[in-house]
């Protein structure tokens, strides 16, 4: 009886300790005492050092996301999400709607700019160890935001319903099904089930377009907004990370100094994006047969491939066995997500080397992936 009493008491103490630990963990990550104007605006300082430029990348990604929202909403006025009309409606926007070509080009170019900004932001945050305690939530939400951004790119790619869109989506969805070959027993049917859920019918068709449309214009943007809220809240409440090993010699006020510089960077980014969108149609980068309306009975044109931001996984997938890429992607994804705990005690110097190696890999595979592929496959 006494032993039971002691055990119950010990359990109670343990539970109390756990609650207190959780409370202190959360209090450290979400310091509500800093939830005031003075802490978040008036007194907030930003370190100034040789890597300070990286502090503008998050804001830049946010700016690109805002452009995507505005241009996406404008495109919605004319876009028709049906297999019979999708391509024609996109053509109509480009050829007949006043300013339509500009809005469409802005949306297309900005999606690339947004993904590039998010990727560079992630690499620099990693190199600067901006994920260290108490910024784990900032990091994890950032990685999830990167995933959703890729999801937006993948789902948006299908919407114009041209040859490259539909055929590249088919290849992408087929990759999901192939995962089943490496799973045991009943689990092996799960990827096929997942593919069918995404696809909605036997092949990529109207159901797929409807689902991708819903994902692209409602589900994923809403998820981004929610996660972005948490991400920005976390950034604001903890301030900018130190970024370098030695204490910064100088700081500047977040408001107005840094904020005004941020706005100027946004202005410059907008002008660059605007000039490119006015002068270079996004389609001009590809062979024209890829942008013809998808014809299920016609021949598949050469050169079907995903958008450039998937090359880092697409070309290795073409060269190496599927299981190698699958394993690599799973490990890579897990490492990214658990970075704050895996690299807790790693020096910034090592992190910079790792980030540089990752950047070199991404650039090489994006720019020379096709050449490397031909080198291996002849």
């Amino acid at each position: 009886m006494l032993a039971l009493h002691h055990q119950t008491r010990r359990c109670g103490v343990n539970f109390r300790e756990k609650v207190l630990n959780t409370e202190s963990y959360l209090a450290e990550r979400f310091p509500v005492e800093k939830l005031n104007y003075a802490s978040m605006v008036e007194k907030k300082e930003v370190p100034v050092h040789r890597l300070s430029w990286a502090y503008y990348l998050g804001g830049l990604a946010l700016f690109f996301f805002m452009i995507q929202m505005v241009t996406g909403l404008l495109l919605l006025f004319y876009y028709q999400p049906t297999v019979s009309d999708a391509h024609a409606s996109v053509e109509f926007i480009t050829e007949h709607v006043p300013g339509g070509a500009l809005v469409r080009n802005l949306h297309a170019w900005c999606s690339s700019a947004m993904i590039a900004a998010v990727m560079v932001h992630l690499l620099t945050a990693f190199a600067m160890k901006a994920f260290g305690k108490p910024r784990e939530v900032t990091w994890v939400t950032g990685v999830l935001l990167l995933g959703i951004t890729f999801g937006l790119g993948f789902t948006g790619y299908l919407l114009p319903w041209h040859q490259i869109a539909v055929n590249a989506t088919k290849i992408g969805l087929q990759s999901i099904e192939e995962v089943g070959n490496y799973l045991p027993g009943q689990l092996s049917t799960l990827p096929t089930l997942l593919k069918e859920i995404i696809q909605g019918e036997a092949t990529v068709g109207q159901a797929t377009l409807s689902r991708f449309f819903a994902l692209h214009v409602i589900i994923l943007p809403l998820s981004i907004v929610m996660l972005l809220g948490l991400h920005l809240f976390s950034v604001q409440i903890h301030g900018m990370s130190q970024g370098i090993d030695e204490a910064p010699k100088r700081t500047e006020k977040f408001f107005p100094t840094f904020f005004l510089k941020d706005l100027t960077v946004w202005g410059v980014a907008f002008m660059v994006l605007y000039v490119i969108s006015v002068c270079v149609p996004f389609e001009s980068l590809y062979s024209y047969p890829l942008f013809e309306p998808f014809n299920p009975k016609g021949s598949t044109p050469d050169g079907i491939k995903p958008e450039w931001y998937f090359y880092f996984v697409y070309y290795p997938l073409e060269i190496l066995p599927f299981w190698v890429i699958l394993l690599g992607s799973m490990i890579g994804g897990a490492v990214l997500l658990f970075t704050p705990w895996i690299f807790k005690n790693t020096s910034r110097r090592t992190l910079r080397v790792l980030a540089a190696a990752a950047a070199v890999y991404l650039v090489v595979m994006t720019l020379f992936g096709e050449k490397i592929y031909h080198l291996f496959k002849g």
Partner: protein
Amino acid sequence: MKPHLFPTIGPAVALLLGALTLGAPRALAYPEFQAQILKQSGRTVNCALCHANSDGPEGAAPGQIGHLNAAEMERLGQARGAFQPGVAVDSPILNAFGNHLIKSLGKTKFLELRVAPAQLPDALPKESDLDHDGIPDAQELRDGTHPLNRNDGNPWLLFRHNFRENFGQIVLTLAATCAGIYGLVHLLNGFANAMRLKREDGDEA
């Protein structure tokens, strides 16, 4: 054969009669030009470069021979007779660029160029630009881009042309962006100064 009889007979018979009457050879797209463009530019092209249908002239889909009615067959026959340059060509199986090609070169010269497809762009009129994208059709042919699609072209050449064309619009947008940032900077600086003054007043009090 009287033209008014055509609507009463089926398209297949019309096709047969048309072919017999006009003595036309088998209608084929010319793959040597496609191969040359791919070799030269690295861009893949399909039959839609010159033809009305991206799968070429043979078949029964719109823009293909099997889909033509009697009047269109007659236009096809006339187009096939355009051996010399300068004859107006309105073939229903060709697009505007294909018709322009035959009109500019004449069918004889065009067929001769099949053995030297690299010379085709040089044989085209240098100033012709059917899609008004600032890139001459001959250059588009060399680059493997579509001469009837103003969104398709060498990106750098398109940039140069569109930049010149839209220079005024770009300058106005730049001015608006600069003015917007200038105004925002002043507004936010005003807020920051007001905050500082309020804080100083509070400190003094």
